[in-house]
């Protein structure tokens, strides 16, 4: 069973080295060193949520006849993906760390051990955590404002580019159809 799985993994990893594909640059745990899309695939591939950022990494397919417009689109998407990944990985890590510090300091203040008799980690209930949530939100407010503005800009740009690419492809297909009907 394990051997079969190992075999499959190796095949998947080694199978498509010659296939041109670009993976997200600083995607942390999500893209992983192992995954390569199969060589015959002409689509992007999306993976499981990244451990740190909860965003799903995308491996973008680079077609052989990629036009300048399509390249711009792909680069914009890769850029946005890397930027998003950085932001959320950092944000979530900071949240976890600060949350643990808060819990630890509160437990210490209460005089409780971090682990109780059964070995379980002690936790605070939601009401006690409320102070932390409020504090965290207000501390990061400005950062979120900047992020929102940038995110909306990127989202619109990418979608607009997608629209342009789709339009160009549709026109190209129509022209090809006309030509083939003419012949």
């Amino acid at each position: 069973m394990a051997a079969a799985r190992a075999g499959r993994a190796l095949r998947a990893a080694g199978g498509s080295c010659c296939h041109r594909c670009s993976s997200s640059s600083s995607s942390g745990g999500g893209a992983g060193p192992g995954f390569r899309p199969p060589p015959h695939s002409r689509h992007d591939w999306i993976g499981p949520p990244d451990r740190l950022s909860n965003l799903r990494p995308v491996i973008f397919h680079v077609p052989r006849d990629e036009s300048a417009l399509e390249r711009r689109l792909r680069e914009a998407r890769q850029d946005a993906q890397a930027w998003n990944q950085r932001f959320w990985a950092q944000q979530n890590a900071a949240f976890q760390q600060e949350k643990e510090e808060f819990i630890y300091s509160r437990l210490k203040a209460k005089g409780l051990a971090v682990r109780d008799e059964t070995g379980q980690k002690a936790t605070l209930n939601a009401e006690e955590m409320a102070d932390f949530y409020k504090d965290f939100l207000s501390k990061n407010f400005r950062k979120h404002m900047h992020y929102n503005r940038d995110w909306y800009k990127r989202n619109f740009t990418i979608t607009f580019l997608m629209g342009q690419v789709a339009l160009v492809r549709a026109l190209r297909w129509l022209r090809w159809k006309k030509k083939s009907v003419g012949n």
Partner: protein
Amino acid sequence: MSAARRCSPPRALAGLFIWHLKKTGIRQVPCQFVHLCRVANDRLITFQYFNFLKRMYVTQYNKDLSQRAKPKSDSVASPFRESQQLDQEKKVIHKIIPISPVHQPLSKTSNINELKEMKLAAEIEGSATPLRAESKEERQWKEMKLRLDDLPGILARLSKIKLTALVVCTASAGFAMAPVPFDLTCFLLASLGTGLASCAANSINQFFEVPFDSNMNRTKNRPLVRGQISPLLAVCFAASCGVPGIALLTLGVNPLTGALGAFNIFLYTCCYTPMKRMSIANTWVGAVVGAIPPVMGWTAATGSLDAGALLLGGILYSWQFPHFNALSWGLREDYSRGGYCMMSVTHPGLCRRVALRHCVALIGLSTVAPVLDITTWTFPIISLPINLYISYLGFRFYRDADRSSSRKLFFCSLWHLPMLLLVMFSCKKSLLEKEEKGDLHGGSHGRAMEMRLP
């Protein structure tokens, strides 16, 4: 996962919406009502069934409300793997999580050093075998190819079809309560137009919120987050719903309803959605968004915006607060981490006060209904028990400010609204009575007829 499968026979609440049960791969006790089911270990599960949709669960795990989709026969998704991941993620909500070493700046406090030692120890105990994890991860990669047979389900989730259905119901209630003879064509056109407008608004909302939805447990299985549909397609779908929807309302019903529909889409997508991350005032804007559909239903029937429309809108407006504030109480962690400005996080006292205030306001608004000649005086009397009950739960929420009281209030609000509207409709003042009294509505009915003719 296994918890969702186990289910003791549910207690059926007052009949709400009756949906056909869809046979799914997960064995469940067949139920045809929206109901609560109490399972061992204090976990509440609400089931909502639709005959053409995948099932959605609001599950409570570790005292946290979250929602996840379980695709029935989604060939693209592997639900089991994802659910396992979900379960794991859920489990760590209120515990100190053993996370892998994140680069941290050197700190002088003893607290941090002690924490690091503990984390290291936790890591050693908690890691899975690398090979198994890797091949499991590989299976989770999906090709981003749109499959046509998945498209209806994807679009249903994109347009938040259940919420849309609720919005259409409230619009129908507005139509039904209007003091004019019932016109079936107009009713169907208005419902369809409202439904399309709601689909459009919800799709645009999801389009704007992809990275935020990814980070919240409740929303991380949305189609755009999972890459099942491209943003371009989502926008095209929104346009292809919104434009015909508003056109239908403007041309097929009346311009006033069309204008309200367009305004509501604008309010939801361009005001409420961005404001969620900027200020707590978003809740009030969202309440207006929820209040407009019954007003639209009324104007569709009568062609004019009169006191009855505003009253119905007012009832829906007030209802939004206990509903949403109670829901948001359990999502404070996700809101805080995701950067959402919600009262439950920043102004918890205000959150509970406002919820209580509006529960009580519902009683007042129900009393105004007969004054405006919309219903008979039996309406405030019959609706008093349910209004008092929700006010009582609102008071408990205000006083206790804990997870269980917020959950109770939220689930109560789910059945309270349909019941209230049903009671309202059954107590509607009949036209005959009004014509006998020879009051104004006869005249306005004539006016309405004029406005409807092209």
